[in-house]
């Protein structure tokens, strides 16, 4: 149970980092919307699960947070990718690609045999 959660948090963290990288400073709702859009609504998750991930990333220093005003003039907490967060994004993207490639090969190999 916990392990599954960790994996999910890890994947979600990568998505958050990528979103902030692509869109610049963004609030929690914006990040959630963006993830839904990119996944073409195939990834329907409770938005609430996002916040513990944001907290963990903030504690690790990958993102930093600041209060600001949203496009509709609402006070919201905006998250920004930090320098170390960008580095983390790069390394995790590479790692993710490698992993998926290996997994893909395994699956392909099984089909051949």
């Amino acid at each position, binding site marked *: 149970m916990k392990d599954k959660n960790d994996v999910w948090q890890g994947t979600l963290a990568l998505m958050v980092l990528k979103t902030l990288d692509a869109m610049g400073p963004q609030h929690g709702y914006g990040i959630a919307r963006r993830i839904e859009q990119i996944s073409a609504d195939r990834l329907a998750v409770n938005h609430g699960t996002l*916040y513990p991930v944001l*907290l963990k990333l903030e504690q*690790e220093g990958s993102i930093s947070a600041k209060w600001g005003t949203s496009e509709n003039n609402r006070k*919201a907490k905006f998250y920004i990718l930090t320098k170390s967060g960008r580095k983390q994004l790069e390394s995790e993207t590479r790692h993710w690609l490698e992993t998926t490639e290996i997994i893909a090969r395994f699956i392909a190999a099984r089909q051949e045999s």
Partner: protein
Amino acid sequence: MKPLRRAWRRFLGTFSGGRRENELAAELEAHIEMQTEDNVRLGMSPEGARRAALLKFGGVESMKERYRDQRGLPQLETLAQDVRFAVRALAKRPSFVVVSIFSLGIGIGVNATVFTWFKAVYLNPLPGVREARKLVTISAAYRNAEGYSNSYADLLYFRAHSRLFTNLFAHEMQMLALSDGKYAEMTNGGIVSGNYFNVLGTPMVLGRGFRPEEDEALDRNPVLVLGYGLWQRRFAGDPNIIGRRLELNRIPFTVIGVAAPGFIGVYGGIRQDYWVPLHMARALDSEHGDRLASGSWIQIMGRAKRGVALAAIQSELDVLSAQIRRDYRKDDREYRAVAYPLHRAQRGFHSGIFQMVEILAAAVAIILLLACLNVASLLIARATDRAREISVRLSLGASRGRIIRQLFTESVVLAALSGAAGLLIAYWTRSVPNMLSGQGIELYLNLGIDWTVIGFLFAVSFAAAVVFGLLPAIETTRLNLVDALKEGAGSVTAGRRRHFWRSSLVVGQVALSMAALVSAALFAQHLVKMLRTDLGFKPQNVLTAETDLFAAGMNESRGRVFYRSAIDQLQALPHVASAAWTTFLPMSGSGGGHRRKMEVQGYAAPDGKPLSVVVDTITPGFLRTLGIQLVAGREFEWSDEKTAAPVMIVNEAFAGLYLKSREPLGAAVRVDGTWRTIVGVHRDYYYRTPIPPPQGPSAFLPMTQDYSTHAIVVVRTKTDPSLLAVPLRQAIQGFDANLPVTGMMTMEENVGYQFIDTKIVTGTLILFADIASILAAIGLYGVLATFVNQRRSEFGVRTALGATPSDLRSMVLFQSTRLTLIGVAAGLLLSVACAQLLQSMLEGLSTSNPAIYAAGALGVAIMATLSAVVPSRTAARMDPIVALRYE
């Protein structure tokens, strides 16, 4: 890196509760409202939009909970909660807190105090020395007498033949007249081998230490390293001191360095002011010729190779001792070299204090245990009061472990407060050895409170919390919920069990305090016995002072005139009974014991070798002045001149051993080649220590025939001897202002020097035993007070049924007496065990006096009676109406 950073942020997050909580709520609210707005825009009704937004978000509260868990460290938060709760709970019981902190603070404080002493003699005994604890000292021993000095030849021999030492060095100290051209003062100089500072690793604040080659040729290198203290005191920390010329005993030396602050040499507890090379020793002391070529006067120390045990060193020394006896100590058939770890080094005060610390450690452990028992007893008493609170919490679903943890936190908070109180106590009491050592004796011990002391305090406080807190915590939570919730009914079984616990604790306290009292009394008896020993001389009303004619640059003919005229001048004073010079004062810490070769006419030594007998030199009237009884013949006269017939005086031991059944007066003895006639025999006296037998054979020579440049004047007065301090100084310096006057003290002070260790340990033990009794009294009082309190209704009923106040009082007294008697019985056994232990630690301690044990029991009984006064009066005065209404 990242996990570490996260842990740190979470640690910080633990302490920023409220603000972060509001922020989180605002952030989530913003999220949901933004979603709601979007939903409205998509055409939903406002209520529907919000519901959908909440649904999309998931459980807000469960998410917040998860968020919080990640934000801080939950365990830490619970701990902080427990601590806050504990502080609140304690604040409600100020009297309990005061009594507990009083008991525990003393208990922890005295432990910390003794720990600073332990640190001063064992853990960190020599500031400014690298790895001081690894230093090993080598002393000479003869038969059963240990702790003698070594010769320079021994140092060279060990250096050449020992394979277990990396380095060996020599040191000794000597009082020298230090002059900077303006004025001279007597100072304590260290005379050390060239590798001294290198081996010790002492840093220099200015200049450098000795180079080994500076200690290879006699008189060649008059160089000097100043101690930090003297540099500050006498030269005001002059930064240009290097290269300065100073005179020691009129011989010019050049300052080459200043040692690091704190470094005072390696003579435990004694401060040296500066150091000079060993090869300058001859120049500094005219009397003994080349002291490197002959004489045993140096201390040897060294560093053993890594991993070499003391036992291995000792067995190597045993082999080397045998070779030395064959090679060059042919006369000393009983010579043996003995290795000691630093804290048992035979010179200085460290070994004596270490022995004392060993004994006191047991005493302070008892005090701490007593304090813990007190607090445990109070906590168990509280258990009854708290039964309802605890049972409510248990029935509301708190786990027992959680409550135990919380109660234990209370104990830890209490212990921490007591630890702080203990630190204050330790701060004030750490210099007790200096105070108890007596006037005129300066002890230099490293008594600073540093991190080792603070760490020790923390450890002791926590350990105390475990000792006094766990049992009560477990006992408190052991509840029958149904019984406990019924107000007043109380749990009879729990009450009985608790009463049993508390009674046992009090019995233990009574026993421990009795053991403490008995131990202290044993020491006091030992001290009194030593102080009352008939020393063979009368130390009352005698004033002494030292001078050094060589240091003043006085030649022999003038010196002879000085010795005579000083005595004449002193004896002319109205308050002086008599006065004389000597080279050695009995029962003083240093000097004396010089052996000379002798041959007694008509006595054949068993192996045909010359005898080696202790010889001191005195002027006429010395025996009378010091009160040493002359059993036959006469004292020396001024007419026993250099040119007159050579004479000597011997003690009874000498006469008994070498002149058996012969008339000692008139017998001929050859001392260092000169035949002398015995003209007097005196009673034996205690030479150095008060441990019998007094003294082996010894002899006196007249100063007129055996000139010495270093002498001690003894003056017997008809009044308070300290009144003569000024005239005595005048008698010496009036003759020559360059003559130093040092060590001016009364003979009683001088003798007291020999009892420092025992005085300190006895004084401290008596103090500790009193503290132990007070703590035990508090414990007994607490139990009796609860006993009375819990039986209010019973007393009320009894009074209503016709019991008189004295009946009630005797009920309480019976309770007190019963506990005390059991305690005394246990205490007797414990005291006997303690006495056995102490006897094994302290030579000559007699433990057989039954009066001591009776006195201990009596002391405890008085203590018990006193602590029963108030509770028994409360019981007797109990108003039956009030007592019954109390329920």
